[in-house]
């Protein structure tokens, strides 16, 4: 069908000039080369994406009512999401997690570490860099279990205390069931530990491109370290900062495994939007509702990304 329509349009353009004909041919060859990739993209990406938008407008579920014959419910799922206190709670948790662990923790700490590593000798760089990157290289599941053993034990517990509680014991401090008593703080710290390496590497490569002459010239003109940082380094790194914030925001918003392993995914104070979505879709089997939440997560990510681009006034 489509091929026929294309053929007709080709016939129609044929009386045109030779040069435009050649151009058309080039476009056609280009399209032909792109076709396999395009088809794959359509079948496996855009198709499912459109499908999930459709599903989010139905009451589709895996079992119970709505499983055999999903009904069109319009925007009902989205209305329900905004009336669900648990979703608003999860949104709050996700944003807290994002701001403290990614934007403040990873980005700032990563930047400071990159500064610290600048112009140091190789051995120092290799050791410090190595330690930080290890945290980034190990799989999420392993990192989760590492942290839960590190934070294990607590007061009155008959189980062996974890490393942190042993340290507390040595210094005569009270023990805590860290993960149960301070879950939000603990997942934030664990994620800072885990993700700082990425920001650090990005900033390190950004700092490489800051010309030394510029900094020297600024110093000669009487600029102190703060002024040099504020007026020379940061403006030059604007693009890097925007890229970093964008990437860590999107990856933190879609984070799931580390927190799920640490908390079992079911504690109201640590339930990220992704965990909430997973529970609704695959524990309560509400596929339609889960799809609606997934779309909202994308919206949150998109809004934040646009915000960064606007605030930092960069062109992508």
């Amino acid at each position: 069908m489509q091929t026929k329509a294309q053929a007709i349009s080709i016939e129609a353009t044929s009386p045109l000039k030779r040069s435009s004909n050649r151009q058309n041919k080039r476009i056609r060859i280009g399209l032909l080369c792109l076709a396999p990739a395009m088809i794959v993209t359509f079948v496996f990406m855009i198709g499912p994406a459109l499908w999930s938008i459709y599903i989010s407008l139905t009451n589709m579920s895996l079992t119970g009512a709505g499983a055999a014959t999903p009904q069109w419910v319009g925007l009902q799922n989205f209305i329900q999401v905004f009336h669900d206190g648990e979703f608003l709670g999860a949104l709050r948790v996700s944003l807290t997690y994002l701001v403290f662990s990614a934007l403040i923790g990873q980005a700032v700490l990563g930047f400071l570490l990159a500064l610290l590593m600048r112009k140091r000798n190789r051995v120092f760089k290799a050791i410090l860099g190595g330690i930080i990157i290890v945290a980034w290289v190990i799989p999420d599941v392993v990192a989760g279990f590492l942290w839960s053993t590190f934070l294990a034990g607590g007061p009155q517990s008959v189980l062996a205390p974890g490393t942190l509680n042993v340290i507390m014991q040595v210094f005569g401090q009270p023990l805590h069931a860290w993960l149960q008593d301070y879950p939000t703080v603990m997942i934030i710290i664990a994620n800072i530990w885990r993700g700082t390496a990425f920001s650090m590497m990005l900033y390190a490569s950004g700092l490489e491109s800051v010309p030394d002459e510029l900094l020297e010239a600024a110093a000669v003109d009487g600029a102190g370290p703060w002024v040099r940082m504020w007026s020379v380094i940061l403006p030059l790194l604007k693009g890097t900062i925007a890229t970093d914030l964008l990437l860590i925001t999107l990856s933190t918003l879609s984070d799931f495994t580390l927190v799920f392993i640490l908390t079992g995914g079911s504690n109201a104070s640590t339930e990220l939007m992704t965990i909430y979505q997973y529970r609704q879709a695959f524990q309560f089997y509400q596929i339609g509702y889960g799809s609606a939440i997934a779309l909202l997560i994308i919206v949150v990510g998109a809004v934040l990304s646009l915000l960064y681009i606007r605030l930092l006034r960069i062109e992508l």
Partner: protein
Amino acid sequence: MRDRLKHRYFFSLMAVFTLLATVLTACGGSSSPSTGKTTVTVVYQQFGPPPYQDQEWWKNVQKKLDASNSNIQLKLQPIIADEGNYYTKLDLMLRSPNTAPDLVREDSFLIGSDATAGYLAPLDSYLNSWPEYAQQWFPSMQKITTFNGHNYGIMNGTDVRLVWYNKDIFKKAGLPTEWQPKTWNDILQAAQAVKSKVPGVIPMNLYSGIPMDEASTMQGFEMLLYGTKDPLYNYTSKKWVVSSKGFEDSLSFVKQVYSPNKLLGPSNDIALSTQAGNTVSQQLLPQGKLAIAIDGSWLPGTWATGGQVPWPAWQQTMGMAKMPTQNGEAPTNVTLSGGWSYSIAAHSPNKDAAFKVLQVANSKDLLAAYDVAVANIAPRQDISDVPAYKNQPGATFFSSLVAVSQFRPAFPAYPKVSVQIDSAMQQVMQGKSATEAMAAYEQAVTGIVGAANTEKGP
């Protein structure tokens, strides 16, 4: 030139579509018995290391079918996944007639949801034609697979919940080593005796809070609530009872166990971790660090030779008692059962053959061998005189509990209600009063099932 290009374009497109079509059909799978036999597909969960007892069972069923010259060929299709993902995959298979198998392993608890979804075929006419079923299956086991008046499965194994206690610790605390608490208070008093006389031991465990999920609800809360006069769900009015004296009393019991000043339960790092189940069965009990545990009949499976923590001495050390009702009201004790069944898929093209297979699989000897192998309690009464089954420690005690066992209201809304129960438990653990926690529960459940489907008890 133009034409050639046009053709090339067309052909490459065709090629891509043909390729895709081949790939997609390959995904669909096909079943074309070349032998003239009827193929019956069986789907079950397979997880962890071998031996896979479901597979062994079905192999024996095939042998027996062959011996009787039936023309049925079983096709085993294990889904290799943990429990949660098993249902996701199973439900996806059951949705479409193209992928629906004939026989499926179902958690009795999801039968209501899957029947509502139209995934399962009612077995009433088949079961009526098979007198053995009505005669041998415990009435409670027949009821558990019944939803809206139709029976959707045959139970092949069940479990019960009870009070485990460590006799060595009881001796040290000056408590009787043959113990049967008559009321909730008896349990609390024994726990207090342990706390004051045996240091370094957790007096009792009652699963509680959100991380332990359904274990908190079923092994914890419902073992209490079902021993009061108030139900979780009123089957007569078909409404959820969102507020009652029994509910509040049950929460008060939880609060007493987890009161920080006089902590009887495990500390938060154990109780509020998702690993609490393993910690209790694999560490605290075998290491003699827990005196009383309200837990499942499946624990000995963990301690058997070849189990996760072999502990042959458990038979001398661990005592079993029935869970009492709140003040010893009739019927004096309470237990809950879950368990597994096999059901016939609604889309199955071979329902008659599938039922024939079910009859063979659930025959006395084959089912007994299976239940012994997986350490299940048999739902068939006559299995209790099979020696291999009878000689298992606790088998007689467990079977006596099955007769009075109760179930969860397995409606589609239940999993969400269950989370709210866990949440109410966690609230009292963390200092809220039972009244406050129950008010929060009432509000949340009303939001889930709708005000029209709730009622208040006395």
